[in-house]
Structures are given as structure tokens and as C-alpha cells.
């Protein structure tokens, strides 16, 4: 007999006993992590605010000095954008963990892991760029 009320189990969430699960302990660890991640993200946003003030200062300098401060302006803009996105990723990660703790929904765990990946990817790219710039500076000096 066909069950007319049978729901379709999405293939992305297999219902067999071999599925990988995040245990209660793992979820608790993520819950503990949330506070620290949020703290760092708040610091990043504060740093972003400080960079904004610095940017206004640099703009004032550029209007007086002209082209030679243009490079400094560009560098500052890059710092601004990077700091903002790092803070955003961390906030997204913390928010997703918060939702996961309450909902225990695999989608929230997915969102959290993706936000974490995006943060580390951006931070990794920034670090690689910083090291390359440092090496270039040392070689030219």
C-alpha cells in the first residue's frame, strides 16, 4: 500500500545509520566558541571604525598634499575593506553557531562551516599578500 503522506527524504540528509553526526559534545564546543568569535568580531569592527577615522585623516592630507598620498589612501581602503569582511565573516559564523545551538538544524551547521571557511580563506589570502609585500619591501631596501 502506498503511503500518500510519505515525505521525500532529501538525498543530502541520508537517514542511514552510517551518517556523520556532530555529537552533543561537538555542538557544546561550538557554543563555547561562539562567545570568543563574537568578541574578536567586535574588536574587528572597532578596528574598522578606527580605520575609518584614519581614512578621513588621510583624505584631509591628500587634499592638501596631492598625489604622493594617493598610494596611502589606496592601502588604507584595502585595510578598510579587508577588516570589514573579516569582521563580517566572524559575525556570520557566530550567528550561525547561535542558531545551531537552538535549532540543531543541519542547515545552520552548514552555514557555520561555510562562514568559517570564508573567514580563513580571506585571512589566508591577506596573510600571503602581507608576506609577499614584506619580502618585496626587504628586497627593494
Amino acid at each position, binding site marked *: 500500500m502506498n503511503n500518500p503522506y*510519505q515525505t521525500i527524504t532529501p538525498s543530502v540528509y541520508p537517514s542511514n545509520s552510517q551518517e556523520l553526526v556532530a555529537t552533543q559534545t561537538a555542538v557544546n564546543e561550538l557554543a563555547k566558541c561562539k562567545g570568543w568569535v563574537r568578541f574578536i568580531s567586535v574588536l574587528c569592527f572597532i578596528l574598522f571604525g578606527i580605520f575609518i577615522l584614519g581614512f578621513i585623516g588621510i583624505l584631509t592630507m591628500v587634499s592638501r598634499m596631492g598625489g604622493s598620498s594617493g598610494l596611502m589612501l589606496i592601502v588604507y581602503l584595502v585595510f578598510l575593506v579587508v577588516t570589514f569582511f573579516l569582521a563580517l565573516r566572524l559575525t556570520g559564523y557566530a550567528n550561525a553557531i547561535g542558531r545551531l545551538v537552538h535549532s540543531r*538544524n543541519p542547515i545552520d551547521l552548514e552555514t557555520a562551516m561555510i562562514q568559517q571557511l570564508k573567514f580563513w580563506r580571506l585571512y589566508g589570502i591577506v596573510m*600571503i599578500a602581507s608576506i609577499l609585500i*614584506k619580502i618585496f619591501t626587504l628586497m627593494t631596501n
Partner: protein
Amino acid sequence: MEENPYAPSQVSPIIHTTSQGDVVISPAALAATISTQFWVKCVGILMLISIVFQLFDAFTENNVSSSNLSGPGLGGAEGLFVILSLTLVLFYIMLAIRLLQYGKAISALAISRNPHDFETAMTLQTKFWKLASILTIIILVLLIFIWFSLAASYY
């Protein structure tokens, strides 16, 4: 006996849990976690490399300041900056070690697909963020102390 069309195994709950509190890790979540491994290890190694640059900078600043500085109070500033640089080096080493441990735990998870390895990875991740937060607070306190010391020595 008629088959029960409402047997629990045929109901697909929105929240997919196996035992109380466990959350199913979707393939996308697992793929994202495993992809994080490369970047986490990359950042850990780059932190160790940047330590070399920091030591170089600290040494260079120390040489420049000892040859060019004159006047009271400025020698103290040089000492404070060296202490700050060495503190940053130590903190970077600690953070890099934690990150590499986290990366290693994700590697283990990628091979075994064992819930215990996911647990270990999340525990190490929490330890990293806790350490990063505490070290950041220490650095901020140090910077405030240095700023006040410089202001006091200048006036």
C-alpha cells in the same frame, strides 16, 4: 495486518538527529570543514614565517634606535617596543601551534569521517579562539600601558 503508513521511519523530521542532541553533518558542511583545513594550516605556517620578519624588525629597530636616539625617556620606549615585539612573537607561536593542531584534527576527520574526530576538531577550534581572545586582550593592555608610559616619559 495492514501496514502502518504512519510508521516513524517514514516520517522525515525537519531536524535530522540520530540521538539526543546530535546533529547530522551534511555533505556540504563536511566539505566546507575539510576545505578549511588548507587555509588553517596555511595561516599557521605563515604565522611562523611572519615571526622571522618580526624578529628582524625588532632587531633592526633596536639597532637604529640605539644609534640615533638621544634624550631621556626614549631609551625606555625602545625597551618597551622590544618587549612588545617579543611578546607578539611568543603569542604568534602559541596561536600558530593551535591552528596547526586544528588543521591536523580536520585532516584526521577527512580520513576517518568519525564523529569523535569532528568533536576533537571543534574542541581545538574553541581553544584557538579562546587563546586568540585572551592574547588580544593582553596585547591591548600592553599597548595602553606603553602609550601611557611614553606619554608620562615625554611630559
